[in-house]
């Protein structure tokens, strides 16, 4: 199971909770609004996390009770802006390198072996990975290290590259620079730090050439049809906590593109609490130990037949 944002969780757990009565049914309603709009889901046992995020926004808008804050999210004129601000709170601190070890383990031991076997049979020994909504670059650099670590074994004889895109120019500048402090590197081992980074200043490391040469950064709006149509031939697409900001129609459009961008047998990965329920039904929801992915089945795949 993914256990993201430990520090924030711990902080929320130890924070005084007398003011947040989790039994207040308004929290369940807020949870459902957030899920409906963004696809991010808080099971009942994680409501305290949502309550902690709401608490900050409630102070900001001077809402005294969860029920009053629910009004801000549903009936007030500023509801869309407020929802966006709440979503920002919810996804804050989500990015650091190697944030989802179980996803990487599933890639290494289940997903990649299958993809490589299928592609090798067709004579393609090239792998294309896309980090869509790469923010400040933690995800593409993680993927680059992950793939490079496999180049002597699983990926021996293969070439691979990573496309990293974002809409935000500032994020892209930071991503290209590849300079990270302790927070971003908290789950990166000393070995990997030494191997792939160089010292930038006293507190920060910078991604080295081997990593950078593997990644192509570009500005892409995921709802821009003209650009999306050309990004073909992907094996893996990672798109974490990006769709949450789109309305249902845009989400469906982006999913249509992703489906077309992926090769048959390829996978799409979303943020760990995100769901595509009622957004897209062409992708197959695949379960791996502690991770889920959305699969574009190969042509001729029949459900019920074990692969």
């Amino acid at each position, binding site marked *: *199971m*993914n256990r993201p944002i430990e520090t924030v969780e711990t902080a929320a757990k130890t924070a005084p909770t007398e003011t947040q009565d989790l039994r207040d049914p308004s929290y369940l309603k807020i949870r459902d609004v957030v*899920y409906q709009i963004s696809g991010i*889901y*808080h*099971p*009942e*046992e*994680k409501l305290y996390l949502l309550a902690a995020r709401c608490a900050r926004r409630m102070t900001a808008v001077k809402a005294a009770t969860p029920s009053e804050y629910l009004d801000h999210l549903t009936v007030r004129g500023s509801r869309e802006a407020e929802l966006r601000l709440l979503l920002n709170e919810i996804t804050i601190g989500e990015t650091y390198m190697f944030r989802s070890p179980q996803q990487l*383990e*599933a890639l290494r*031991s*289940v*997903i990649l072996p*299958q993809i490589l076997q299928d592609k090798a049979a067709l004579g393609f020994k090239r792998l294309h990975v896309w980090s869509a909504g790469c923010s400040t670059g933690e995800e593409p650099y993680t993927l680059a290290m992950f793939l490079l670590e496999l180049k002597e074994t699983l990926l021996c004889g293969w070439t691979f590259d990573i496309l990293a895109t974002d809409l935000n120019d500032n994020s892209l500048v930071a991503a290209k620079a590849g300079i990270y402090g302790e927070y971003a590197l908290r789950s990166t081992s000393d070995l990997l730090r030494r191997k792939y980074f160089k010292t930038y200043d006293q507190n920060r490391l910078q991604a080295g050439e081997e990593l950078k040469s593997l990644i192509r950064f570009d500005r892409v709006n995921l709802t821009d049809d003209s650009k999306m149509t050309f990004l073909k031939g992907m094996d893996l697409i990672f798109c974490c906590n990006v769709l949450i900001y789109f309305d249902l129609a845009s989400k469906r459009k982006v999913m249509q593109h992703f489906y077309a961008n992926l090769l048959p047998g390829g996978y799409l990965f979303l943020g760990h*609490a*995100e*769901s*595509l*329920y*009622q957004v897209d039904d062409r992708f*197959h*929801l*695949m*379960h*791996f*130990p*502690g991770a*889920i992915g959305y*699969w574009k089945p190969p042509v001729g795949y029949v*459900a*019920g037949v074990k692969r």
Partner: protein
Amino acid sequence: MPSVPAIVQPLAELLREDPDRVNLDKVVELVSYDSTLVAQCLRMANSPLFGRRDTETVRGAVLALGIKRVEAIVLGCCLNRIVPPDKWALDALTFWRHCLGCALVSSKMARLIGYPDPEKAYLAGLLHDVGILVNTVTCTEEYRRTIEQARRGRIRLHESEQQSLGFTHCRSGAILAEQWKFSLDVRAVIEFHHDVVKSVTARPLVALVHLSDLLCRLRELGYGYYEAIGVDLAGDEAWSMLLESCPALAKMDLARLTLDIDGAMDEIVSVVDAVFRPEAIAAK
């Protein structure tokens, strides 16, 4: 094969009555004879799963839990006893976390998709792997090697069993279930949860527990080792089997159920630890 404990027969007879007409006093009396059972019922009734009541009497616990849940606790407790503390092949807590997880996911899924008997789904989920206990007591050393082989190869446990023992926990579980006179439905689940298409009775229940079992193993409520598997649950043959009798399954938000399991994990772990750990420690 482990013999049938004394409490199982009279309890089964009491529970044969219509749920509304079961003689509660007799059930309370039966449970009260056994201090471990009393402790387990109280701990379960006072666990977060039942809203942390402050139940102090057996009667209060039985009322809080409901008669079906008491039956599940009694059977779980009896089964736990067939393995001497030094003989466990899979760690006892890991095993019961998997079973309780599967019980809870089965009953939750049953409610979500309109399967008519969620408590039966709970019981079947709890008991589906009894064969693992049978294998543990009947061939301890060999079974430890079987599990080690599964762990090292990262393969499914029943595949490893088939390779090294020549039979699976489904087969050995079915024999115990017959001797202990489990209901035909639960017996079908025990025998066919890894080969759903072969089941003749209770096909929806077998399919339901099969899916819950997979979900648990994929959300860290498995056998305590990494199974290198990727599963298209909605493409599984059990899914289509269950769909025939529970069309609401097609509309179930599977990703959300998965996150619900993750959310409930700490609770499941703490309940199993509270219910089984004191006994495990006391036994040593």
